[in-house]
């Protein structure tokens, strides 16, 4: 099996794990970590596409590589913004949760089962 295939399968597993963390983990900071795992998996899919697109003397297609570099930087910006939101949330409410105390509810409100 080529490196691209091995890491492609790895990427599929990472996307699944990251998605699971984003959906299920109640802690916002851990959701952010899971989001980064998910992003890592998606970037790897780009990476193996680039590796398989090796041509013209390049070991890897430069266009997806540039996309991934952009993606890593933007993912960092999103992480920083999300982290600042979590910190402000804690400052305001003293709790690390997206679920509101009363009615209304946050995005994970349907978790009550």
């Amino acid at each position, binding site marked *: 099996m080529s490196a691209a295939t091995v890491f492609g399968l790895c990427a599929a597993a990472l996307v699944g794990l990251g998605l699971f*963390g984003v959906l299920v983990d109640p802690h916002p900071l851990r959701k952010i970590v*899971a989001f980064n795992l998910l992003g890592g998996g998606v970037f790897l*899919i780009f990476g*193996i596409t680039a590796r398989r697109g*090796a041509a013209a003397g390049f070991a890897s297609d430069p266009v997806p590589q540039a996309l991934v570099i952009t993606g890593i930087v933007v993912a960092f910006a999103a992480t920083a913004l999300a*982290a600042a939101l*979590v910190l402000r949330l804690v400052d305001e409410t003293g709790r*690390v949760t997206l679920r509101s105390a009363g009615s209304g509810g946050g995005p994970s409100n349907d*978790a009550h089962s």
Partner: protein
Amino acid sequence: MTLTFAFDAILALALVAVAAWTTAARDMFAAVAGSVAFGLLMALVWVRLAAPDVALTEAAIGSGVTGGLLIAVGARLRRNGASPGAEPPGAILRCTAAVVCGLVTVGLGAIVLLSPEPAPTLAPLAARHLPQTGLGNPVTAVLMAYRAIDTLLEVVVLLLALVGVWSLAPDRYWGGRPGMQQHEDPNGVLAFFARLLPPIGIIVAIHLFWVGSVAPGGEFQSATVVGAMWLLAMIAGLVDLPPIDRPGVRLGLVVGPVVFIVIGLAGTALAGAFLAYPPGHAKLLILVIEIPVTLSIAATLGLLVVGPPQRMPPG
């Protein structure tokens, strides 16, 4: 051949194991430390995928600066003694999510196995026009010439993210300094380290910046190293961050995007399209863009890590 496969298999297994543990870990710091380890392994993966430019970015941003950010946030949450808040969702939801995520994994795996090899590629096109850009590194050529508009927007996105982070500051701190005051023994080990490392880091950053036109490297990696060194000096209490309403700070943050846009608009007049470079001047113009952009990205990344202002504005 089998050795490379063994290497790849161990690396892939370690990556998935770290991801799984990070998702399952109870302790928050375990999750944060796991994500640092994850970034490190990802950098190795990028080298194996023949993408050293991406490996540099991952080592600098994915593992380094993101790790620093998550560690700082984790420490603040712990200090504030914030209660965990929500309990994990019920069994039904967990099972449903597990099934859905399993399906996504299986589907993606199938796509990986079934997709054509060799994949469709833009590499020949990138190679054909490389001489016109005067660059030797195709990835830099994509970032700075073929798809310069993406890079411009990316720099703007970073700036917007910083504006978003700052706008989360409580009113009383607006215009104040971000981060906490650091109290550190000026003759201590940490201060020594923070005096020694930044000069080395800046040399590495200049090296990465300079080779970026012909070899792996470039302005993002270089800027991240500079930003990290700035943060290190800040952590050690050697420098304090400026209040966010200083004109100099604002200027430093916008100079990169502004120069980028001005040269892009000049391209409209001189070369017929936004961000087009006149023939023969591409390399020089790219350099003129890259220098201020690197400084702006370094400042933006550093300030993104420390977050919104946390201290009263002076006076």
